[in-house]
C-alpha cells in the first residue's frame, strides 16, 4: 500500500474504518456516569464472606460462573482435537532431524531449568484461589517448560518419558470430571464451596484445569514443532 498511489478500494476502507473509530470514541466520551451499583460490587461483598477464596476474580469464574469455564475448557479441547485430527499430515524434509539445536550449553541448562519451570507452573495452577494465576496460566507455563526440554533431548523421547498416549485418553476424562463439578454445584441444594469440603473441591478443579491445559498445550506445541518447514 503505497502512500502516493492509493487505489479507490483502499481509500474506501480507510474512510469506513475512520468513521467507525470516530463513532466509538464519541460514544465513549459522551457516556453518562450513572451511579449504579454494578454486579461486580455484589460479587465482592458476597465473596468477602467466604474465607476459602482470597482471589475474588477466581471466585467469579471458578464458582459463580463455572458454566462459562466449562465451555472455555471445551473450546480448548476442540482446538486440541482439531490438531489431533490433522496430525497425520506429511512432514517436510527439514524437520526430520530429531534434535532442534545441537549444543552442550542448551543440554546442560535445559536439564536443570525445566523442573523449576514445571514446578512454577504447578504452583500457579494449584493456588488459583489465593493469588493471581490459575489453571490456564499454570498449564501453559508447564507446557513451555517441556518444550524447553524437547529442544535439548529431542521431541520423540518426551513422548516416552511422559506417557503421551495415556495422557491423551486421560484428557477427556478430566473434562467429564469438570462437568460433574458443574452438575453438583447447580443441582445440589447445598453450597459445596464452603468449609473444608469447599477447599477440596476448589483444589480438584484447579489441578484438573491445569493438567488439561498442560496436556493440550504440549500437543499443540509438539505439532507445530514437528511440521515446521518452508513455503
Amino acid at each position, binding site marked *: 500500500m503505497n502512500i502516493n498511489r492509493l487505489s479507490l478500494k483502499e481509500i474506501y476502507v480507510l474512510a469506513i474504518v475512520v468513521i467507525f473509530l470516530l463513532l466509538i470514541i464519541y460514544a465513549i466520551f459522551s457516556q453518562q456516569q450513572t451511579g449504579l451499583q454494578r454486579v461486580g460490587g455484589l460479587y465482592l461483598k458476597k465473596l468477602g464472606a467466604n474465607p476459602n477464596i*482470597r*482471589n475474588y476474580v477466581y471466585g467469579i469464574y471458578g464458582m459463580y460462573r463455572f458454566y*462459562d469455564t466449562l465451555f472455555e475448557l471445551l473450546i480448548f479441547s476442540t482446538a486440541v482435537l482439531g490438531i489431533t485430527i490433522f496430525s497425520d499430515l506429511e512432514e517436510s524434509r527439514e524437520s526430520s532431524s530429531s534434535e532442534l539445536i545441537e549444543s552442550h550449553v542448551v543440554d546442560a541448562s535445559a536439564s536443570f531449568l525445566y523442573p523449576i519451570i514445571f514446578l512454577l507452573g504447578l504452583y500457579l495452577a494449584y493456588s488459583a484461589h489465593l493469588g493471581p494465576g490459575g489453571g490456564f496460566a499454570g498449564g501453559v507455563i508447564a507446557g513451555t517448560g517441556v518444550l524447553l526440554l524437547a529442544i535439548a533431548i529431542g521431541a520423540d523421547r518426551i513422548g516416552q518419558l511422559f506417557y503421551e498416549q495415556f495422557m491423551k485418553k486421560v484428557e477427556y476424562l478430566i473434562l467429564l470430571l469438570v462437568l460433574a463439578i458443574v452438575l453438583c454445584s447447580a443441582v445440589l441444594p447445598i453450597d459445596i464451596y464452603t468449609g473444608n469440603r469447599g477447599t477440596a473441591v476448589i483444589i480438584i478443579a484447579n489441578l484438573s484445569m491445569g493438567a488439561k491445559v498442560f496436556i493440550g498445550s504440549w500437543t499443540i506445541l509438539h505439532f507445530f514443532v514437528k511440521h515446521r518447514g518452508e513455503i
Partner: protein
Amino acid sequence: MTLFTSTISILVVGLGIIGLILKKNVLMKLLSLNIVNTSTILFFVLIVSEQGDRAPIGSSGLARMADPLPQALVLTSIVINFGVLALSLLFTMVLVKRYHTLDIDKIETSVKRDYKEESP
C-alpha cells in the same frame, strides 16, 4: 484518564482492522486478527476501571477494589483467542503446503479453479 487510555486501545483495534483488510499476505492477516482480539480485551478492562483501584485480591484491603467481573470475563476471552490462533495457523499451514504461496489473491483463484475442475 481512563477515557484517554480506552481511546488508545480503540485506535489499536482500528489499526488491526485496517491491517486485516488491506494486507495481501495470509500470515499478516492472521497477525492483524490477533491484534484486534487482544486490544479488544484491553479495551474491556480499561473502560470499566477508575483511577486508583487496587487489585481484587483479599489481602490488599477493602478500600476501593477494581471491578472483578470484566477481569474474569477476559480470562475466558484470552483462552478463546489462543484456540482461534492455533486453528487458523493450522488451516493456513495446510493451505500453504498445497499451493506454495502466501498471497491471498493467488490462493483464491487456485481454489476456484480446483472446485470447478474436480469431478463430483
